[in-house]
């Protein structure tokens, strides 16, 4: 009884913007699902607000909607498209929650939409902590006990009655990230910590939980089909024991330290869990803690959907969990589906592997100065690397190399300090552990501090002492085949390993020309899924152009590392050594380094030196664009100007240059640490103060001074050049103020307030720069338009972060076009219509501040966003409103709006205030603004500026007495206020706009929304030609 014929049209929900804990892995799973459903002949209606996903490429669905993942817009899509079923298990927690909302509010019932993959009851059993506890207890499976306590006496009573035991973890209710909690090992500590926790909790309540800190942490990936057949796809063991979120833990597959009986017990329990929770078909992830002393097992949690771990498990074993989950959801049984890799055996089996897989998370604390780097039970990493090696050491060493770290943690001088340092889990702990072994500290000493299983520690000790064990061996390539070579593999998914001389490689390379595409490595802030998107497009296009597409990447979350994406996938670190080794086997026609962000670009020089042909823009052009002097000379030749700038080697020189450039000035050291020492100086006094407070300009530490263009409009341009002709694909106008990293700014296509003349000038400048640089492929140029003048800020002759957004906005896949150009085609050969769409597209950034305790929530020249969303509408306000909603800072429907604007904006602001008042909002304003508003007859309440003391505006935001912030800053004092206000707003998830364009868009969006959600249009409709 295979494929269901009673359903024809299936809605798939994606996971929205990349945020910490929910990243590219859901694009990978969603793409697999969409492909499977289309292949099976279903119509797919896809919804996702993230433009940088492959799944939102129009060819992956029958109808693609880039709308906010919220009940109202999705209900509007359901009403329009009338899907028969909704598959909610492939878009992470976002999709699952949204499906639950649509079920709860009656939408699914109203339109007769069936939930497939997991039903409402199963989702509740898996997700609701109390229900889960009950279900597990009934099934005889132990989960850690936990008790809600409101007094110290009550806690002691529970302890005495045996309902609680020590050690226990105390978590105050409703505090951010467990602040005020702790661990109690003795009765006295219990009294102390519970008292502290109750005091810290706003509702005087703490959760006392069984402590399994230090226990081994394991995960099993489970699949079940409608015939109740259950298989385990992969076991994963965390190197970091319980206490660190599994997403932040170094993990390995398969489990290393478990005996067969204990592993089989986990397996039995995982199967029981998926059955009890009632996930009828698809994948789940079950997490266990195992007491190393006696093998006691508790279940920590389960996810009734595919997860980050299942993406890892898929890449680790070659078993495509999401693809199978989609097939199971539409009626197939595991035994009816062939194993994708062997093609000869069925999918109803358990993969076995003959290598070791290591995953190491990648963190971004350097972007958030002040943030506590301690790892805990909530996830803080922004990406991960995976590596495959035959032995643990080989695998681990490859993973360490894949991280591409900018710096290593400092190793304390004394042994005792080092041991103390490793007692706290941090991103750099593993490096310190290796340093400890290099220094001769023992496994026992390290174990005592870290609780890391001695098995791992002995391997790490060996790694520190003897290296990765590959000395004297030869590098060969093996396949990932799901079966440890028991059957022949049909899928070209390779990893390098070292074996005795003369060992065979398994690469099956025909005689075709190949193109090697270098991926972007681990996701990090500033280099995210956008670059993987471009790499995937490059692979697709290389294949279309008759080449073998060869992908090298080490990021398990991505579509690029799906073995279906390329003709040959090498899961390898993106280091020169590993890339050259692949090139030696592949002898490629060329390597594409332009699509994976900085990671492959850093290798360009080395590859060139090794005689490897690079496709597209030559290395020299990259250098010419990045070198301030060379680029300055180049644009000078073209008669294009940059904002006035200079470099000072002393304080005196700085003041001299400053007077030449004029104020306001953007001042920063040439070596910027997280943008901290960057400031805008409005006067010579400001600059003097800056030089005293911060950096002493010196020959070793030059100071960069740029004219800060006030009231400038920032513009981003993506274009393609073939050496003779330039296609300007997208001109994006930034909505937010200048000085914020372009990756963190909202932008709009087409530009809203730039005249045709200036647009023509931008196009001409773009063409001139691209041609002069000698670009063959993509180029991104940033401009500022101030007082009718065009200034070029910088040019990057490579794929930019905005390529996917522009592609979705205009309906032309830029990375594909660029790849064709790089492979020798001309722009004239391409079908590139001038963009004539009548819709407006807005991109908005999504920020992770709430994840980082103690970090300044301030935007600046350093990019801090993890992801982006798109909003498309018939006009700017609608598109802007959708983008805001999709980014999770929904514009309020009622409440209070704070308005504080610069003098030149006051007239416009009073009009906005009047409109807001008409929409039913209360208006709050700083004194000057309040006077202006009041004069126009709009009721307004005045409030203190920061400097005027409490209660001031930040207090209002902190107390959440404010639902929208409109704050256009100018002048140094106001700007400082602006940062404080914006920080507070971000911290509390309150939308804030810093330009009048943005403010007016927001107000109009709120007005538009009052008339209902409006029409939803698919990308296919928008770009129909």
């Amino acid at each position, binding site marked *: 009884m295979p494929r269901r014929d009673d359903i024809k049209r299936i809605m798939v929900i994606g996971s929205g913007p990349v945020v910490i804990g929910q990243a590219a892995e859901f694009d990978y799973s969603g793409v697999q699902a969409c492909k499977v459903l289309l292949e099976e002949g279903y119509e797919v209606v896809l919804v996702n607000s993230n433009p940088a996903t492959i799944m939102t490429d129009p060819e992956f669905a029958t109808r693609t909607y880039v709308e906010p993942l919220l009940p109202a817009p999705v209900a509007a899509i359901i009403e329009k498209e009338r899907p028969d079923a909704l598959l909610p298990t492939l878009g992470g927690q976002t999709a699952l929650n949204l499906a639950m909302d649509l079920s709860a509010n009656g939408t699914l019932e109203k339109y007769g939409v069936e939930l497939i993959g997991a039903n409402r009851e199963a989702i509740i059993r898996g997700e609701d902590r109390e229900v889960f506890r009950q279900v597990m207890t009934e099934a005889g499976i132990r989960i850690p006990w936990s008790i809600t306590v409101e007094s110290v006496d009550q806690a002691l009573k529970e302890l005495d009655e045996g309902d609680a035991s020590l050690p226990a973890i105390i978590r105050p209710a409703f505090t951010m990230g467990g602040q005020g909690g702790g661990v109690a090992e003795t009765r006295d500590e219990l009294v102390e910590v519970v008292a502290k926790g109750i005091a810290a909790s706003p509702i005087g309540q703490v959760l006392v939980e069984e402590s399994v800190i230090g226990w081994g942490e394991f995960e099993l990936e489970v699949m079940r089909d409608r015939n109740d057949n259950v298989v385990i796809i992969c076991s994963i063991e965390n190197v970091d024991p319980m206490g660190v979120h599994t997403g932040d833990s170094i993990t390995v597959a398969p489990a290393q330290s478990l005996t067969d009986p204990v592993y089989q017990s986990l397996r039995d329990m995982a199967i029981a869990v998926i059955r009890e929770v009632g996930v009828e078909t698809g994948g789940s992830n079950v997490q266990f803690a195992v007491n190393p002393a006696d093998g006691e097992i508790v279940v920590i949690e389960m996810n009734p959907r595919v997860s980050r771990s299942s993406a890892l498990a898929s890449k680790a074993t070659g078993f495509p969990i999401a693809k199978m989950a989609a097939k199971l959801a539409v009626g197939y049984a595991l035994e009816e589906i062939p194993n994708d890799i062997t093609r000869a055996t069925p999918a109803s089996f*358990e993969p076995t592997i003959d290598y070791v897989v290591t995953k190491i998370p990648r963190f971004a604390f350097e972007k958030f100065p002040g943030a506590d780097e301690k790892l805990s039970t909530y996830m803080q990493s922004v990406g991960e690397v995976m590596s495959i090696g035959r032995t643990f050491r080989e695998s681990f060493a490859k993973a360490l190399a894949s991280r591409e770290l900018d710096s290593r943690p400092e190793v304390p001088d004394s042994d005792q300090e080092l041991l103390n340092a490793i007692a706290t889990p941090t991103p750099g702990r593993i490096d310190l552990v290796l340093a400890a072994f290099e220094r001769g500290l023992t496994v026992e000493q390290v174990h005592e501090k870290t609780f890391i299983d001695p098995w791992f520690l002995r391997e790490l000790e060996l790694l520190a002492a003897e290296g990765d064990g590959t000395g004297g061996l030869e590098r060969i390539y093996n396949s990932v085949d799901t*079966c440890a070579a028991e059957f022949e593999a049909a899928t070209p998914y390779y990893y390098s390993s070292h074996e005795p001389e003369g060992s065979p490689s398994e690469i099956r390379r025909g005689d075709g020309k190949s193109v090697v595409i270098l991926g972007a490595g681990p996701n990090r802030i500033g280099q995210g899924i956008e670059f993987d998107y471009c790499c995937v497009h490059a692979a697709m296009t290389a294949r279309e152009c008759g080449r073998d597409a060869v992908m090298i990447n080490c990021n398990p979350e991505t579509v690029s590392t799906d073995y279906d994406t390329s003709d040959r996938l090498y899961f390898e670190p993106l280091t020169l050594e590993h890339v050259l080794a692949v090139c030696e086997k592949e002898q490629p026609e060329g390597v594409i380094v332009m699509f994976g962000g900085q990671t492959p670009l850093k290798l360009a020089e080395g590859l060139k030196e090794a005689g490897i042909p690079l496709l597209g823009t030559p290395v020299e052009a990259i250098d010419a664009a990045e070198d301030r002097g060379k680029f300055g000379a180049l644009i000078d030749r073209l008669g294009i100007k940059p904002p006035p700038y200079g470099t000072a080697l002393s304080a005196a020189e700085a003041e001299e240059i400053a007077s030449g450039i004029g104020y306001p000035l953007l001042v920063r050291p040439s070596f910027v640490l997280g943008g901290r020492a960057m400031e805008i100086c409005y006067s010579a006094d400001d600059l003097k103060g800056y030089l005293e407070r911060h950096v002493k300009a010196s020959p070793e530490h030059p100071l960069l001074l740029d004219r800060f263009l006030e009231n400038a409009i920032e513009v981003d341009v993506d274009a393609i050049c073939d050496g003779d002709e330039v296609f300007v694909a997208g001109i994006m106008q930034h909505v937010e103020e200048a000085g914020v990293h372009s990756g963190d700014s909202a932008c709009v296509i087409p530009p809203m307030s730039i005249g045709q003349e200036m647009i023509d000038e931008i196009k001409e400048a773009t063409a001139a720069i691209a041609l002069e640089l000698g670009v063959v492929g993509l180029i991104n140029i940033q401009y500022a338009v101030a007082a009718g003048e065009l200034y070029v800020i910088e040019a990057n002759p490579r794929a930019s972060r905005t390529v996917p957004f522009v592609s979705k906005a205009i309906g032309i896949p830029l990375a594909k076009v660029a790849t064709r150009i790089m492979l020798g085609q001309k722009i004239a050969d391409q079908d590139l219509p001038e963009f004539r769409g009548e819709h407006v597209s807005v991109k908005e950034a999504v920020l992770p501040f709430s994840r980082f305790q103690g970090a300044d929530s301030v935007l600046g020249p350093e990019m801090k966003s993890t992801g982006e969303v798109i909003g498309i509408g018939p006009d700017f306000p609608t598109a802007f409103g959708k983008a805001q909603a999709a980014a999770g800072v929904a514009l309020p429907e009622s409440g209070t709006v704070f308005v504080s604007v610069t003098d030149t904006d006051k007239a416009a602001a009073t009009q906005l205030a009047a409109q807001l008042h008409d929409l039913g909002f209360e208006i709050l304003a700083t004194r000057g603004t309040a006077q202006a508003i009041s004069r126009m007859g709009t009721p307004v309440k005045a409030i203190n500026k920061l400097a005027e003391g409490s209660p001031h505006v930040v207090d209002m935001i902190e107390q959440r007495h404010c639902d929208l912030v409109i704050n256009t800053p100018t002048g140094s004092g106001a700007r400082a206020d602006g940062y404080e206000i914006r920080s507070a707003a971000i911290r509390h998830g309150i939308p804030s706009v810093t330009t009048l364009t943005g403010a007016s868009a927001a107000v109009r969006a709120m007005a538009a929304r009052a008339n209902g959600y409006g029409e939803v249009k698919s990308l296919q409709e928008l770009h129909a030609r």
Partner: protein
Amino acid sequence: MSEPTPGYVLLEDGSRFDGMLCGNTGGGTGEVVFNTSMTGYQEAVTDPSYAGQIITFTYTMIGNYGVSAAAMESDGPHARGVIMREGRNNADAASAEGGWLDWLQANGVWAITGVNTRALVRHIRDKGAMRGGIFPDSIPTGEALGMIENEPSMAGSDFASQVSPETPIEHAGQGPHVVALDTGIKASIVNQFLERDCRVTLLPCLTGASDVMAREPDLIFLANGPGDPAAVSAVTDTIRELIGEKPMVGICLGHQLLSRAVGLETFKLPFGHRGSNHPVKDLETGVIEITSQNHGFAVVGPDGAGTIETDEPVRWQTSHGEAVLSHINLYDRTVEGLRLPDAKAMTVQHHPEAGPGPRDARHLFDRFLDLAKEG
């Protein structure tokens, strides 16, 4: 653990795979097979079914959690040697009573590490399981090849009688009396019966039919064991005499011997089934179980075919009534289990007792005992 010395694995076709010896440094031969299980190395080596064989572990890190008495499937190792990519001697695990490499050496098991086991496995997969050996570099290849040629082929080899106990072994219990012809029974099988409160008697496999009956069995159990089922015709003859006397069940070699006793043929698989991930479909329930496997021979299906293309409980005639296909291997569609209603018998090719491997099929022991109750 002694200092590692360079050594190599040599197969009878001359293929050589270098590594480092980490146990005895003499040299030994046997049939080289591979096991794809990622856990349970000690259970495998002490499983008597591996008598005469050298096990290549496809998983690379072997020895991680040491050795323990609880993991013994018999009194000692039966595999002659082990071939590993990265052998480990750790004894940190709470359950560990010693290091794996130390234990191998103390028990005289040849061991070699650092071998490109994947290349070796691919070779065996393509060319079939074959004789081979583990040798120190001090033995030249030519001499080693001679030693391998002196090793009898697995086809036709009787190892079962070598691993059978010399005298009966009795385990007390209140429930049905299970009398086993012990061709190398695994401790896990005995434990499954004991957990169900059976009384278990293990008899030397050459015990005659009347002596078996004299034990007053409620269920006659035909054990797993090593070697070619065709080479233990004496046991097959005994089984034939016992058919119909009492309900009878068999596992692995026992399944093959009972099949032979009713006139079915067995054949040597190209490289056998050894691992813990083989899907087996129970044709009586439709359920797919992930099973533990360890066999190099299989029972021929109806019409003399090695594989069966349908998922139906196919029936065909034997010398003792109908055979009904009860289980099929979904990897290569070979026979995984039979019911012989007229002979009051049922058998499975895989290892429902697990140890090592998944426990999905353990419920079969209940089915065995149900059969015993039917008398």
